[in-house]
């Protein structure tokens, strides 16, 4: 970070003195800055630590912010030093020495930036791998899955087993609904999760592209029609969390938000049983649970057929419709 060449009017001794003090100041300020960012700012960075994926993201933000701190301090320090001490003197019209062709500077610059970028690439890959995708949608065939979990049953679930809890997230203009296949397949507008239990979100859409963003839970997965997008997390603290749509999906996109709740395991089980009973009549008329739903294949009743209504939307979603993409 030291000055490589004497500014106009400076001596060789002056350059070395500037370089020494710049280095000393940079190291001192960087140590202080890194400690402040890592220990004071870090625990308050979003999205918090309500789940394994949120905590992982918060750690990543803290690490990246800490790494960036010496760089930012170095740039600002050098900038301020130049403004304060290397200003052009009256009558001095000489240029500073050119640095083009300086192999030492070129090699140092390429090596340093290359090392930083490659190190961050390795770190980023590990941070996707270890926390099972870090809460991001991994597509229909996820690469990274939570350790020790299986999908041994889609029709039942018990806490503390390897069988992971399945929650289907269904986007539609303009609301989210949630389906719990392991509890009879009921569908509700409430998202409840048990604390300390790994969860597999299966995210899809019934119309346009939405994006399920459980912000403070650290989960974000696009909801595409006809596609299942899988994301994982493990809630670690009880309490509510924010849910938003993060893909512009129509006029009420901005209103497509809400809250979910992380409950104790016993409270979650009670809620599932109560809701299952409350919604029993509705569950009977829902389509069989599937990872995606095709509105063009909805079975129309005899009255619908008589009216010429062949699918959801009264035929408006016909694949042959020239207005369809």
């Amino acid at each position: 970070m030291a000055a490589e060449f004497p500014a106009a009017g400076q001596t060789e001794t002056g350059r070395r003195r500037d370089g020494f003090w710049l280095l000393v100041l940079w190291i001192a300020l960087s140590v202080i800055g890194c400690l402040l960012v890592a220990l004071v700012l870090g625990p308050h960075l979003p999205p918090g630590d309500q789940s394994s994926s949120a905590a992982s993201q918060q750690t990543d933000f803290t690490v990246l912010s800490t790494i960036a701190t010496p760089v930012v301090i170095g740039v600002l320090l050098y900038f301020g030093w130049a403004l304060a001490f290397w200003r052009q003197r009256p009558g001095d019209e000489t240029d500073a020495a050119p640095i083009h062709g300086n192999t030492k500077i070129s090699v140092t610059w390429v090596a340093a930036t290359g090392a930083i970028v490659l190190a961050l690439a390795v770190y980023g890959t590990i941070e996707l791998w270890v926390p099972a995708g870090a809460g991001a949608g991994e597509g229909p065939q996820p690469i990274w899955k939570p350790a020790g979990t299986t999908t041994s049953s889609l029709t039942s679930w018990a806490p503390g087993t390897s069988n992971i809890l399945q929650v289907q997230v269904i986007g539609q203009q303009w609301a989210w609904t949630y389906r719990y296949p392991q509890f009879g397949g009921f569908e509700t507008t409430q998202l409840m999760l048990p604390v300390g239990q790994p969860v597999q979100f299966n995210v899809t859409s019934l119309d346009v592209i939405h994006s399920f963003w459980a912000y403070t839970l650290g989960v974000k997965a696009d909801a595409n029609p006809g596609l299942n997008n899988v994301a994982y997390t493990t809630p670690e603290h009880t309490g509510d969390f924010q849910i938003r749509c993060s893909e512009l999906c129509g006029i009420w996109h901005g209103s497509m938000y809400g809250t979910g709740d992380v409950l104790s395991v016993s409270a979650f089980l009670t809620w599932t049983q109560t809701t299952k009973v409350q919604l029993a009549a509705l569950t009977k008329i829902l389509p069989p649970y599937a990872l995606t739903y095709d509105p063009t294949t909805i079975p129309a009743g005899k009255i619908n057929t008589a009216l010429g209504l062949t699918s959801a939307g009264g035929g408006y979603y016909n694949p042959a419709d020239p207005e369809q993409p």
Partner: protein
Amino acid sequence: MSLPARVATLVVAFLAVVAGVMFVAFEFIGAQPAVENYTPYASGGQVNVTLMTTPETTVTNKPDWVSYFIKNPSTGSFDHTTYFAVPANTKVNVTILGYDGCTPLRNPVWGRVAGTIGGIENVSYFNGKTFSSTQSLQTFDSWANCAVQHTFAIPGLGINVPVASPTTVAENNALCGTAPCVAGTADQAKAPHSVVTFSFTTPKTPGTYRWQCFVPCGGGYLDGNGGPMGTPGYMMGQMEVQA
């Protein structure tokens, strides 16, 4: 061209562009439907709100769009708007006159009544001659029975009410063809329709809540969710809760 002239031209052109952008923005933002204010008509902690669905909107330049209308509490006529205001912490008794025909829900989950007092809606049907007896219903199977024409949903309050549709093919083929559907003509008076009533309580604090239909009833538009589904004043609106 001299420098002052070039600068003046540039400034004028810039101001013209800014004015154009502001005009378009304010024209769109300002062109919201009128608000039917029911607050002055609340009495004894209750207020009665009446809405109507129509298969066509012949009073606008989009005559083939389905739409909601709201009864003007002062004049008693039905106005083409979907914005209304009600007082806070008040029981709202809603009547929806459903003059449209059935359309299957894309997601049957919206076929269940939610958020109303008692968790039900009361429905009677007019077949063109007589009214049926009133039924209290909670769940509609719009796929099997073609029982729903639209929904009235306020997601922010957890309210969802399927608007029942006329029950037979004959009734669905004899729908009101002029909006609003109670203007007094003989044809309109005979149009089959449903009468849906339900109640809910407004929040204790003021606020604005959007409401919408969850039936993809924008015929001819992508996914059925364009046109009237994406335009304030047709199948969506706002409920303003006033202090």
